[in-house]
């Protein structure tokens, strides 16, 4: 594909209101399946300070996003091949020096990333849990927002809180719900329906049901093996769910330019 015909990449933020819902696993496995579909994907670990994409992938990167932000490394040195058909921009794990980056650094990071965006079809932001300004900033910058949740009351109310806060800050957006660890598709459909009614009623917002991965013991095994599920157990029910979801994402097209300008108006924390 030449530079002339290359479409701009689609930037997708993967977020969750609540932590521990398997967000990073979702991001990693979606990128892997996008790779299988012949798409070039980059996962950006935005969970600064508590990163774990590299851990799930069995990698020990020598440089990470903190080095980039602190000017200790160039972008080319930091992005690595995950070995599973996509690239990774790792974050630092446990390093307290950068947990929440200032919006100025966040803009700089996004501008730097924009330089390599052309190499990719899809860029996935694996954003941290919660609603800190850094998390909101990355989600604001993306074209599409995937929200990962599990069928628990806290995950559902936190997902709603996330939608509400981000919408309050940026106006209506497209949210795609991905349900993790569900018993069956009906459970996901039921919760989507319920959540959708509430967002329509209170926020005037329609939510897309993107997909649902069943509770799969093989996922835990893959985490312990530090190898993505899609590589280790490609035929497992959850891996198949990620594959179906990636096929949907593949068809998405950027409906707007990546809005770096909007980030400049991003209110300071």
């Amino acid at each position: 594909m030449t530079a002339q015909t290359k479409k701009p990449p689609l930037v997708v933020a993967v977020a969750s209101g609540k932590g521990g819902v398997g967000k990073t696993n979702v991001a990693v496995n979606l990128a892997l399946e996008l790779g299988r579909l012949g798409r070039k994907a980059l996962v950006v670990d935005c969970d600064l300070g508590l990163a774990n994409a590299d851990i799930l992938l069995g990698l020990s990167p020598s440089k990470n996003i903190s080095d980039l932000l602190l000017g200790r490394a160039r972008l080319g040195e930091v992005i690595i091949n995950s070995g599973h058909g996509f690239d990774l921009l790792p974050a630092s794990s446990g390093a307290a020096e950068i947990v929440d980056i200032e919006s100025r650094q966040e803009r700089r990071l996004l501008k730097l990333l924009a330089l390599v965006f052309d190499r990719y079809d899809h860029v996935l932001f694996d954003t941290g849990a919660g609603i800190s300004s850094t998390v909101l900033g990355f989600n604001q910058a993306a074209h599409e927002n995937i929200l990962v949740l599990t069928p628990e009351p806290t995950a559902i109310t936190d997902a709603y809180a996330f939608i509400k806060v981000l919408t309050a800050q940026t106006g209506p957006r497209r949210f795609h719900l991905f349900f993790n660890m569900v018993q069956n598709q009906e459970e996901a459909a039921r919760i989507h329906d319920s959540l959708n009614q509430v967002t329509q009623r209170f926020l005037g917002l329609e939510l897309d049901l993107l997909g649902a991965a069943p509770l799969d013991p093989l996922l835990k095994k893959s985490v312990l093996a530090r190898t993505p599920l899609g590589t280790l157990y490609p035929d497992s029910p959850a891996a198949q769910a990620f594959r179906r979801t990636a096929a949907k994402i593949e068809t998405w097209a950027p409906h707007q330019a990546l809005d770096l300008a909007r980030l400049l108006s991003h209110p300071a924390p």
Partner: protein
Amino acid sequence: MNQVDIERLIEEIKAAGRQVLKLDGQNGWRALGVLLNLEEDESLSRALGMLDLTLPLSPQAWETLEELQRLCHARERDLLKTCLTDQLTGLYNFQHFTAQLDVEVSRVLRTQHPLSVIMLDLDGFKMVNDTLGHQTGNEVLAAVAQVLLDNIRATDLAARYGGDEFAILLPQTSAARALPLAERIRARLAAHKLCNELKVTGSFGLSCFRYLDREDPAQVIEHADQAMYQAKRAGGNQVRVWAADQEKDRGAEVTSEEKGALLKGLDFS
């Protein structure tokens, strides 16, 4: 362990071809001086840790070594404790409190559990010092520290913030839950007879940091401090909550109406 033991140990180490640089046979941990091929400023436990287990020493010499090692570790523990605590009150010191605050703030961003901070300043403490002397003043501070320790929970952290100011860190605690705790401490302190039937009261300020907050985490201290000054200006012996923390359930927070709608009809059994 006696002088002879150590002398013999040193002889055996020398006989084994190791250099013994500096000796002080007076007592255990100092006797270790700097053993073996280490620089003078390297720590003793490190020197011991580097001792080659294959050294041809007699069983008695090994026993002496192990005893020295125990003394060394005990000494290190004491040193660590001295570094983290305030000598006068036995509470944690300002430095440790600040370090723990950073840790707990990171935890809030990850777990989304709120973190509360209570600042306490004694009322009219200067008068105690001026009229009854610094010795009595010190006794009062130590007694107040004991009241704090007796009334906080195992997961809370009480510190002497400086002078007659104390700070308590309450992880996983909302302002609403921290308030009764602050009230209890206030009441116990007011009822407590300190040395010589002396009574002392305190002004308490309470602030809470939550993951929904977009403010600088460092401000939680500032806010608790300001609330504490409000309590002081209002005459002391009372607890004040930072004003914005009382308002936080509005705005982008999920309302109880929304929460009810979210969970209605969902069966989580």
